[in-house]
């Protein structure tokens, strides 16, 4: 339980409330933005930071005991895995030919693949499908 009269619990609660705000904003971005790349952008970064803050609230509440160290380990895992998963999903979506939102002006990944296909035929990226 949490007791807001204690300063330590109050700091932990404020951290967790801030984390929840980041989570909610990330999920609103996930619902509102136009295409999958924008959604990945809003969702992954906001939700990762929000979960960091929630876990840091656990660390502040309990100190460096069994739960605090596990929360720090969890922060480490998420910091390693979440950008990797987001990168893999974005790359897979681009290769699967998911189109960009109408109004997008730049697609560096496709330009890079085309340039590489011109200079070295048969290289990776030469079979890039045009989205």
């Amino acid at each position, binding site marked *: *339980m*949490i007791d*807001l009269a204690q300063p330590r619990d109050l700091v*932990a*609660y404020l951290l*967790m*409330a801030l*984390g*929840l705000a980041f*989570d*909610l904003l*990330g*999920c*609103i971005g*996930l*619902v509102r933005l136009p295409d*999958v790349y924008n*959604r*990945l952008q809003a*969702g*992954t970064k906001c*939700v*990762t930071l*929000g*979960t960091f803050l*929630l*876990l840091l*609230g*656990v660390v502040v*509440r*309990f100190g460096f005991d*069994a*739960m605090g160290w*596990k*929360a720090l*380990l*969890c922060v480490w*895992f*998420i910091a390693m*895995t*979440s950008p*990797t*998963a*987001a990168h*893999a*999903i974005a*790359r*897979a*979506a681009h*290769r*699967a030919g*998911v189109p960009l939102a109408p109004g997008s002006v730049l697609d560096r990944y496709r330009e890079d693949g085309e340039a590489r296909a011109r200079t070295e035929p048969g290289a990776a990226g030469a079979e890039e499908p045009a989205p």
Partner: protein
Amino acid sequence: MSPLELLMAGLLLAACLCLWRAWSGPTVADRTVAVDLLGILMVGFCALLTVETGKDLYMIVGLSWSLLSFVGSLTLAKHLEGRRFDD
């Protein structure tokens, strides 16, 4: 409603937004993104449950959930890319 229950309700609202995107996403990639985010959100929910109950168990659940959701996201991404699981 205690303060922590308020936070849990907000987190469940965020999870409902993710579920809506996973339900109605126009492409498979949108659904994959939503499921990935849902996994990270549930780790945060496990942190809230740890503070609420004071039990060590929920943090262990969060640890394993973060790693398993990473493996699931990579598998879905690879399937989306159209590759076999053994290359």
